[in-house]
């Protein structure tokens, strides 16, 4: 028998490094995978390649000086973190922000949320092999970057918020451009859905892939679209309304199963809700001051404070301990991508390597935010 000469087939596992330089990790992330053929046995995300020590920097800088750091943690939704940080310090010091400034902040933060989701949309579909939607979404996103560039002076790392208000007032051109953008994006949904959402190849790559149910999300502290896709309507903008979100009418889209397709749909619906918020905020935009009178150096009273906002990826929290001086004694940023990435250790085992790309893309992580 010829078979006698063949070596017996044994189970064999091997290790594969996915990253740190890999086009689908969107940042410097290394996934250390133990594979059995095409199947993943163990996954260990290795992070820290982009660790810059923001929290240590905070301890030797004035509250004002730390402001630009916040938008560099999550560079895709920098304005939202910026907003969260200034709102936290305003609450500590007790600064009353003029309503016009609050509305401008909300409009810009929602524009930023849409730009982050549009980038995710383009890159996610590109990871799955579709190049055209990427061009569509980046074309739309470019409009937002232009609008935000007009008011803040930068395209990505906005340090637009200031303690007590915003850096610069918006003009009529900003309002017209934003209104035009809202109309433009609404007219594009059909293209997006026809190109991607109804695409059978896309559905096969996303449906029932990477299921993160409520139980799993709660254990890993996942927030944002991942938790909402699992059917939990938790959104910091509703749960503990900050700024003027309580005055605006919007819904929290949720999914049911918590697979990659649910997360995709939740994010698309979130963009529609953000458009609603922008529209209402533009309508109600009051006249008046854009910045309250704030001392040159803020000195929050002693104690510890926590302030949460909803970024494009989930709940961001700033935990600040103040010793009564103009320097934070300790500043901790709770970032959503942290839990959202850690859940991979549980989700990836048992899936195919090809699905890893889809799962990682659907989770929408920003690695520098995890590393801080």
């Amino acid at each position, binding site marked *: 028998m010829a078979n006698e000469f063949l070596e017996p087939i044994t189970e064999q596992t091997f290790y594969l490094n996915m990253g740190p330089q890999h086009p689908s990790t969107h940042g410097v992330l290394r996934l250390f995978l133990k594979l059995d053929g095409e199947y993943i046995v163990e996954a260990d995300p290795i992070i820290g390649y982009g660790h810059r020590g923001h929290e240590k920097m905070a301890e030797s800088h004035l509250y004002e000086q730390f402001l630009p750091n916040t938008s560099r943690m999550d560079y895709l939704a920098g304005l939202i973190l910026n907003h969260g940080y200034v709102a936290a310090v305003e609450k500590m010091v007790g600064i009353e922000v003029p309503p016009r400034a609050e509305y401008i902040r909300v409009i810009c933060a929602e524009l930023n949320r849409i730009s982050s989701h549009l980038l995710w949309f383009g890159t996610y579909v590109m990871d799955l092999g579709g190049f055209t939607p990427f061009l569509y979404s980046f074309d739309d996103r470019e409009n937002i970057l232009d609008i935000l560039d007009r008011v803040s002076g930068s395209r990505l790392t906005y340090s637009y918020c200031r303690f007590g208000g915003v850096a610069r007032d918006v003009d009529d051109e900003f309002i017209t451009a934003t209104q035009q953008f809202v109309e433009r994006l609404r007219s594009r949904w059909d293209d997006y859905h026809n190109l991607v959402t109804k695409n059978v190849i896309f559905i096969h790559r996303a449906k029932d892939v990477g299921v993160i149910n409520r139980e799993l999300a709660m254990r890993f502290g996942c927030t944002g679209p991942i938790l909402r896709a699992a059917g939990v309507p938790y959104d910091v903008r509703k749960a503990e309304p900050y700024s003027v979100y309580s005055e605006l009418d919007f819904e929290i889209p949720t999914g049911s199963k918590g697979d990659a397709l649910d997360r995709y749909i939740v994010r698309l619906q979130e963009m529609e809700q953000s458009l609603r918020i922008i529209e209402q905020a533009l309508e109600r935009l009051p006249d008046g001051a854009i910045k309250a009178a704030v001392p040159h150096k803020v000195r929050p009273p002693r104690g510890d404070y926590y302030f949460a906002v909803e970024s494009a990826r989930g709940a961001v929290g700033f935990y600040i301990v103040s010793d009564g001086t103009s320097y934070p004694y300790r500043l*901790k940023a709770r970032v959503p991508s942290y839990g959202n990435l850690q859940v991979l250790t549980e989700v990836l085992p048992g899936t195919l390597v090809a699905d890893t790309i889809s799962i990682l893309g659907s989770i929408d992580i920003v690695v520098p935010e995890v590393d801080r």
Partner: protein
Amino acid sequence: MSLEGLKEELSKVVEPGDMVPREYEKDGCLLEIKARAGQVESVAKAAREADCFLESITAVDFTNGPQVIYQFNSCTSISRVLVRVQLSRGESVVSIGSIYDAALWYEREVFELFGIRFDNHPDLRRLLLPEDADFYPLLKDYGKVHAFRSTEDIYGE
């Protein structure tokens, strides 16, 4: 579950005197729990019973020893609870990784940045720093900081 439900679960494991209500409007937390290092596991179990998720684990360095801070919150109604554990220098805490998987990474981070060890942690490697890092960067005697204070200076206790 509401804050009341969480309070009820917590009252089974901590003394009523160690549960201090906080002003949410002022500092964003609803309840503070002063726990000892040995109580952390039972507090985490109570929070899990009350359907809370772990928001973060962090630490703050003081002259009289570091403090580990846990934050739990519920996704049905706002109920942020801050658990404060005062340690003496070199003291370790028990890991809550078996209750909340999220804690595994947070504890690794606190370990590498503050040198606080977590007992029963399955895999206490460095997370953000290089594997061979032999320093604890968020301690106040490392690098440039503005001040190094005691808990009394800040909380007056």
